[in-house]
């Protein structure tokens, strides 16, 4: 609403508000983890909360470092959306059987979700880039134009986020092969598809075959694909037997 009204002002308060929310998220995940005796990724509800936590974590690491304070205005709604969905929709279903702790499986799931959080931030930076680019192209500069970071800074942030996300996702993917039981074939293929998509984006960027605008668009497409995959993994019947 503030953005629409043209009076948005990035401030320390916004960052503190997200920080406070992050503390509560961490507390919730910690309590849930203690109750379950393992990483709280046993159902779709926990996955969404963990993903929202990852977005907040990466934002707090990346936002101040790259002076992308306005990113909070884009990240916060995503966190609210993820958590709101998790709280409203009845997806917090207890697993009928107490799941045993499996360090590799928990590592695989948690690191993959942090990678998704990084891709979410890259997606948000991509949206910011497209908003800024569109205004510059059409010569229609709205209030938000003066708050968004410069195009080159945004693109640098997108590139770094993509590299970090890709690295984390690769670690998550590789660790998936050590969980002790074979993962569903479709899941592995889809996960490899997402990995290849992000790898192709980075390769295109590295070889200067992709214009920044296209990289920004692909960040949005890539995250949509990753989110769909995550949904598929957790929503299907595999969820009760895997994190």
């Amino acid at each position: 609403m503030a953005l629409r009204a043209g009076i948005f002002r990035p401030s320390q308060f916004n960052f503190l508000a997200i920080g406070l929310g992050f503390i509560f998220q961490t507390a919730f995940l910690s309590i849930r983890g203690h109750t379950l005796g393992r990483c709280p990724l046993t159902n779709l509800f926990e996955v969404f909360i963990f993903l929202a936590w990852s977005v907040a974590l990466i934002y707090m690491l990346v936002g101040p470092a790259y002076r992308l304070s306005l990113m909070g205005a884009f990240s916060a709604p995503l966190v609210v959306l993820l958590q709101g969905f998790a709280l409203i929709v009845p997806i917090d279903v207890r697993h009928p059987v107490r799941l045993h702790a499996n360090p590799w499986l928990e590592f695989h799931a948690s690191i993959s979700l942090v990678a998704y959080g990084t891709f979410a931030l890259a997606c948000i930076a991509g949206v910011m880039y497209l908003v800024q680019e569109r205004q510059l192209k059409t010569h229609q500069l709205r209030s938000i134009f003066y708050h968004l970071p410069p195009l080159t800074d945004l693109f640098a942030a997108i590139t770094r986020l993509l590299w970090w996300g890709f690295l984390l996702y690769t670690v998550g993917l590789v660790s998936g092969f050590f969980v002790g039981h074979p993962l569903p074939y479709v899941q592995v293929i889809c996960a490899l598809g997402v990995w290849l998509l992000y790898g192709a984006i980075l390769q295109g960027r590295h070889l200067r075959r992709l214009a920044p605008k296209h990289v920004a668009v692909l960040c949005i497409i890539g995250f949509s694909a990753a989110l769909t995959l995550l949904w598929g993994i957790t929503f299907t019947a595999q969820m009760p037997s895997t994190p």
Partner: protein
Amino acid sequence: MNLFCVGLSHHTANVETRERFAGHAETDCILRKAGCAEALLLTTCNRVEVYGASDKHVSTDDIARCLASKLEHDPHDYAPPFYRYEGAKCVQHLFRVASGLDSMVVGETEVLGQTKKAYETARASGGAGPYLHRLFQRAFRVAKQVRSHTEITRGSVSVGSVAVDLAQRIFGQLGNCKVLVLGAGETSERTARALVSRGVNDLRVSNRTLDRAHELTRLIGGRAISFDDWPEQCREIDILITSTSSEAPLLTPASLGPMLRNRIDRPLFIIDIAVPRDVDPDVNEMEGVYLYDIDSLQSVAEQSLALRRQQVAAAEAIIAEHMTDFVDSISRGLNRDTPPAEHPVVEEGSLRASEL
């Protein structure tokens, strides 16, 4: 004690009239002879105003006579449209002036500096006493609050500053940007100067007459490039300022395309201030190229002004709040703020009770 303001501004008088009453260094002393306990003269290119505090009524004619003291004729010969604000209206007017709401370009910040300077001058000469001290200190606070809590100063409103602002929105720091000035005209020189003042180090100038290019580089730095070599420069540069007198476009998508081949991840910002235009408008459709001609720069400046005007209501609300508080506080006397030692002691009184 009555606070009042007498003056003329761009709203009420043309520049010729304003210069006749522009005042002189000794004017504030003369004003005190006219019967003011405190007086302050604010002169900018858009206004000539006297702020005063007095127990008795000081007529507008007396003020006008003081301001026009060096004129041979009676000031009324010019029928100057002086305005006069008293009490709360005077407080409100000063707050609006200091905040840039009464300026020709809404939201400009230069007037605040000029107001501060006028206050310092009056303070040094003893013209500003405890009432004007409090009034102006509050005005500075209000201006600061208006600036930080609204978007009244947002955006650039002149062609040159819009170009520089856009460059910073594309590239961030301009220190690493390479700039080519094509056609060493007056407007391109001004724009290049503005870019250099914001940190541009690598400036290249190309002109049909190489001597003129050399002349410009001597003035603002950089190096001159032969006019035949400028297309090659487009492979390297980040910002192109063009203002040649060419009848046909110098840059078209067909000619620019090959130059952009190896710079897909680097934006190119083109400022075309030539009439007729040097760059084909279709160039703006190319990936990573941001083309602004004189009309689009003007349009951005107007958008900024419109944005500022949208903020006027919010600024007025802040001013109204401060005005009420200030009038309340001053009606309770001067006890809350101790007047500076060098200020003459003025008898306390209730502004609201006596004059407001």
